[in-house]
């Protein structure tokens, strides 16, 4: 077990330093909930590690020391049936250890779960869908998908983000290991969690509760921005969609096919909510919930044949002509 722990640390240490994208190591926390969990983890690991070493040593000792030798095989050893004192000792000591572990655990449970929401907090409604994430900022009038933007939280003047977790269909789980433990998104069962990242950058995660065919490609990116970056991101997201005359043909395709049944583009007739809001699609670095990077080529492939990118996703193949496809992708590319 120690080996496992040490090698996990080694993998973490071998990651390139200063890279803008963070890993998903639970022992490299960047937010208070993740940090208090990591601290508790180390405490519990040390205690169980000590138990492991002691019992392991006892086991090895008794196996080696009391191995039967062929010469004396005919004689049976002394028949011992038990000892009340010894058995009492190895009942009471574990009970004491359990009490200590429990108190440490209960403290962290309380510290994470029972925090009241402070006045400056950012509220986000996170809705799990098969197989993508919808993020709505009710105070700010922003709707986006799959890539969550939150402000960095200065410990002196904390601006934590509180997530209200809902599900549109099956169970999902929001897990960004460096920011917090996971919490499930369950239909008819709203949940809450909070993040207060201490450093900026991209934090990765993904859906952790099996939700259907494409559970594996329901990835999460959390962009932790400086307050200025966050304010400007919000400002741009609040704008209606760019209306560019040059791509009117693509817009026409979009608005006259089934696209608008599922997708919304603010300021147009498209107001579907079954799929991600596309108003500012090009402000995101990935499509299909992280399954592919957001390039014109991938967009075209995704619209033409979603199964090539994410087999089993609920986006239907649109069966458009090449001409319409090109026009549509050109339109998509203007949605900054």
């Amino acid at each position, binding site marked *: *077990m120690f080996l*496992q*722990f040490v090698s*996990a640390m080694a*993998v973490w240490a071998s990651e390139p330093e200063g890279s803008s994208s963070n*890993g998903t190591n*639970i022992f490299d926390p960047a937010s208070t909930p993740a940090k*208090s969990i990591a601290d*508790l*983890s180390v405490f519990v690991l040390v205690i*169980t590690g000590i*138990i*492991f070493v002691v*019992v*392991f040593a*006892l*086991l090895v000792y*008794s196996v080696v020391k*009391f*191995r*039967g*030798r062929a010469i004396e095989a005919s004689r*049976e050893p002394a*028949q*011992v*049936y*038990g*000892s009340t004192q010894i*058995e009492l000792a*190895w*009942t009471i000591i*574990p009970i004491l250890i359990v009490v200590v*572990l*429990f108190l440490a*655990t*209960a403290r*962290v*449970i*309380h510290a994470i*779960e029972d925090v009241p929401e402070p006045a400056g907090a950012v509220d986000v409604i996170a809705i799990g869908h098969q197989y993508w994430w919808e993020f709505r900022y009710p105070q700010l009038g922003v709707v986006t998908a799959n890539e969550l933007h939150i402000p960095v939280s200065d410990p002196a003047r904390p601006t934590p983000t509180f997530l209200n977790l809902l599900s549109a269909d*099956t*169970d999902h*789980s929001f897990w960004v*290991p460096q920011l917090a*433990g*996971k919490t*499930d998104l*369950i*239909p*008819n069962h709203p*949940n809450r969690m909070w993040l207060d990242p201490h450093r900026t950058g991209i934090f*990765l995660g*993904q*859906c*952790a509760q*099996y939700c259907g065919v494409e*559970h*594996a*490609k329901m*990835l999460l990116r959390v962009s932790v921005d400086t307050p200025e970056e966050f304010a400007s991101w919000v400002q741009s997201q609040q704008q209606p969609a760019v209306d560019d005359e040059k791509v009117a043909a693509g817009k026409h395709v979009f608005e006259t096919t089934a696209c608008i049944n599922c997708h919304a583009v603010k300021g147009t007739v498209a107001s579907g909510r079954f799929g991600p809001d596309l108003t500012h699609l090009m402000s995101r670095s990935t499509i299909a919930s992280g399954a592919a990077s957001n390039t014109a080529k991938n967009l075209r492939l995704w619209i033409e044949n979603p199964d090539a990118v994410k087999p089993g996703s609920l986006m239907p193949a649109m069966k458009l002509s090449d001409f319409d496809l090109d026009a549509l992708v050109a339109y998509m590319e203007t949605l900054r």
Partner: protein
Amino acid sequence: MSANAMVLENVQSSDRTWLETLHEWLTTVDHKRLGILYILSALWFLSLGGAEALIIRIQLIHAHNNFVSPQVFNRMFTMHGTTMIFFMVMPILFGFANYLVPLMIGARDMAFPRLNAFSFWLSFLGGLLLYFSFLGGSGLYGAGNAPDVGWWAYAPLGGRAFSPGHSSDYWTLALLVSGFGSIGTAINIIATIVSMRCPGMKLSRMPLMVWLYLVMSGMVLIAITPLSAAQIMLLIDRYLGGHFFDTQAGGSAVLWMHFFWIFGHPEVYVLVIPAFGFVSEIISVFSRKPIFGYPVMVAATVAIGLVSTSVWAHHMFTIGMNSYANSFFAITTMAVGVPTGIKIFNWIGTMWGGKIQFKLPMLFCIGFLFQFLIAGLTGILQAAAPFDWQLSLSYFVVAHFHYVIVGGIMFALFGAFYYWYPKTSGRMLSEKLGRWHFWLFLIGFHLTFDLMHIPGLLGMPRRIYTYEPGRGWDTLNLLVTIGAFIQAVAILIFVWNLIISYWKGEKAGNDPWDAWTLEWSTSSPPPSYNFATVPVVASRRPLWDLKHPEDPDSRYE
């Protein structure tokens, strides 16, 4: 007693046609034959579940692999989990109970032989239903066969809206039918132990393993009934317009989780307690000492049974329970560590001062002790609820429960095979093949399941058919897959050993291990009536008393 048994050899006429033999096996109500049928069917399902595991492992060998489609992958892990829990480990444990419990308590059969046969065939039918889904799961729909909802089929994924067709119905029926079989066998084991013990065998003189099976059977009754109830509710949802778990109509997904885990956690102990039983018998015999602290071992088992009925929601730490509920289930879960710890210490106490013989059964039990220690401690890590918010639903959990089931239960089972095979067949299993099996399986096991913890710590969720490169998961998954294949080779050697030793194995005699419980007093294999004359016992180790009249156990009890 043993003299009588030797006189009465098992009468096996060899002039029967194979059809007559088959008919005999299909209609048998003999507890030993039913035990063997349970074990053979479990080995068959082990091979199916193992093949599914290998498909899973090949798919995960590197990032973005395309060995199978996501749909197939999801079916594989659903079928693997369901098969291994319900049609491999449970039946094989019932098989050992069937074979051994009557022999160990000096009875001539189980209390209800016909119920016994009925229960076995129900369980087996359940397995067939589950696998029929590969053919009939699509029903009239075009898409999908075999259930793909995960072995716990969380609502609403298992509901009609998200699982059309009949594949998950076969899952439901399989669990319902085999569940009735399990309940029947559990009742039978309890009745047998309560009412069929030979003269002199007080409850306090039963072999420890029999005690453990008594507790296990009681827990089966507690655990399986809510599962069966939930399956019936799910069927009502799917076919009669019920809304128990139908979240689109106001049903509760969390209700299903409670039902499932109220079954699911006691189930873990249903599986592991018989393994404790095998280990207790084998360590005692191969250390040449009686089990250390027998009354405490019994008490600890009963304590585990009781406490384990109040820990189920530790599978649900991530569903957003309030801090009081999380704290409650954290402490009850940690509390299970106390009686479990007592057991480990008492096994060490049994070896302490003994003369340990490193025969194959003992090797596997020593493996069990080390691995169960680690599995127990990683369990404590997850009992710390906040730590579990990171570990739950990740590969760490997958590694943890495979450590319990493979590193613990499977190792104990292999020990039990090497220990009791001579009794069932009259032949010893090959020592040479057995050592190959042991070392290969040990290496493969550790390569797979030690390393599997780490991707979990690095953020890899379970049940994903593919993953992104560059997160430190690739190499680990490759090694895990290699380990899985080493284990598969070891299992093949083991099965080959079971087959070849049946004809070529060294003759075992009645009591090859110089053991102390009643099954070793009769012939190998035992006659259909088990004992020519009903034995009378005066202590926990009747054969010790017989072999050491100058220093019998009965003097100390």
